[in-house]
């Protein structure tokens, strides 16, 4: 499965790439919303992990533009937020507040990917 990790914090992005990669997925990283949109234009991922506050293009704006792309309205998004309070209006399947439990994040990712496959079938 293809997973896109959108996170500007390099050490965190790298750790998540390793964690999901070691589960056998094909994982790519993007440092902001703009780069993420470019990746999605090349290949629509099966799951997106999305940070919210990023330079250039933040997670909210990415999510709005991504949902308008053809074939992207049902792709599951997991938001990784620094705070629940300032979540705002976002169309996501799950929200993890930082600092989150890595096992729980991996489980949620697996569950959403499984549901996605079921949905397509």
């Amino acid at each position, binding site marked *: 499965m293809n997973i896109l990790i959108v996170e500007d914090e390099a050490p965190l992005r790298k750790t998540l790439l390793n964690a999901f990669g070691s589960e056998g997925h094909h994982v790519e990283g993007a440092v902001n919303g703009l780069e993420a949109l470019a990746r999605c234009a090349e290949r629509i991922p099966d799951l997106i992990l999305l940070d919210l506050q990023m330079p250039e293009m933040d997670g909210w704006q990415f999510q709005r533009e991504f949902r308008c792309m053809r074939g992207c309205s049902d792709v599951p998004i997991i938001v*990784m937020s620094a705070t629940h309070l300032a979540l705002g209006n976002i169309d996501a399947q799950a929200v993890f507040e930082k600092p989150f439990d890595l096992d729980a994040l991996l489980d949620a990712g697996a569950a959403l990917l499984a549901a996605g496959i079921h949905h397509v079938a």
Partner: protein
Amino acid sequence: MSTARSAHDSHLLHNRDVQPNEATFSDVDALFEFLRGALADALHADSFFLALYDELSRTVEVVRQLEFDTELPGGTFPLGQGITSEVIRTRRARLVRRWSQEAPRVQVQYLSKTPGLPESALTVPLVAGDEVLGVIAIHKYAPDAFDEHDLLQAERIAASAAATIARLRSEHAWTRLQTRVSELQSILSTMADAVLIVDYDGRLIALNHAARELLCVQEVSLVLGQPLVRRAWGSWPLGAPELAETLGPLLARVKEGKPLAEAQARLESQGDRVLSFTATPLLDRHRDVTGAVLVVRDIGHNRGAEGAARDVLAVASHELRTPVTVIRTQAELLRRMIRAGTVTSDQIDADLVSIVNQTQRLATMLSLLLDVSGIEEGRVHLARRHVDLAALTAAAISDVQATTERHTLGLHVSGKPTGYWDDRRLQQVLANLITNAVKYSPEGGPVDVFIDAHPDVVTVRVKDRGIGLACGQAKHVFDRFYRARSARRLEGSGLGLHICKSLIVAHGGRIWVESEGAGQGSVFSFILPRRPIDTHVRRDCSVPGDIIDAQKDRCGENQQSK
């Protein structure tokens, strides 16, 4: 001054032969009268002023000015972005044909019978050697009133006038007076508090750099003489009606002879920002009120200490989460891999280094927050000792240079910049400013630090050629959490500059930033008194008395000259 332009050319022909006979000018008033005839009247100007410039305090002093033959109060203002300041900075005369289209906006103007603003201006620097001594300027309400021919004529006259001023300055009496004025200006310009001085009619006659920043008039031309209580100056960026309502009664109380009057203005247009004004009367020899000194403080957005603490907590809880998240996920991933037996010792080592780095980052943020909360509560303790600022700066530069190959850091020192300061705190300020200069010059390039030692103060300028500041940003960069919304990290939240400002202010100094605009680089400057300014010492030396006397003398001069 006549408004007819018909005799223009014949006047100029006549004036070509008129050169100031230096021996005849015993003082600035005589020079002013000569300039009035040779320049203002000859070119049929509507208004005319002569200003002197004090390089040490970077202050412009309008010595005398006329509009339609009426003498208006002179006064002082710090170098800004207006036309006068531009001419001083560039040392080049400026001819403006249509001010409304080609020159900086004017926010404050004279009460005059003519509606609108002057459209034509001719501003010429008075340069002697490599020093700018001042400026002469003439204005006319009609557009296209002056041409290059007039500019040349004005420059010729300015050269003679500059020579006269240079000669007058070298004379004993002038030097003594000017030294006192220069001292006063230094104190005013160094003060972190915003100071405005008004005459009896409430007209603005002087303001310092902090006032210019606080009242947001940094980027516009400013004409002194505007009554502060006039409601019509709605173009002033702050809430003019609220200010007028506050200042009117305050000045009335001062005129009644109240030794100290205080008032607060709540500016709803500025997000409920609150300014506090303290007014002290200026008295002449007969104890009559001649004007007032207003100290203005920005006491924030109508929030108490609780609000400030909430700000700190909000940013902290948000920003501290990032390194904590990195540490936690890395540790958890490591554990998973160790359990699965899929990890090499090299990888364990690399991950642990990363975890340690993140804890270091947490520690840095925590000390930043502690600094801020200490500053919020007014706890800045300085351990003063004899410090060589040149050596301290050289060390800071070498630390930052070690982190970059794309930038060339240079140090330029004039004089011996030593003083009684807290070296650890100043090192913190220098490191912050130099790191910022590098950080905001992503293309690389030179970063230069200039240190100038003056008798009583030392100035430091950190100049980069980086991304600069957009118009209007400059006055906010020292605010707490200024960048919090746009910047993600605590390190970039603007807290660093806020702390720098607090540390410089604790030393009795002032910090500011100038930028020609986005992409034009920035210059961060601070000025430090070489010795602590202690209020008790000052009282013993009766310096405050001198200040008031000096001011009084100057007001007196202005009035006598009318």
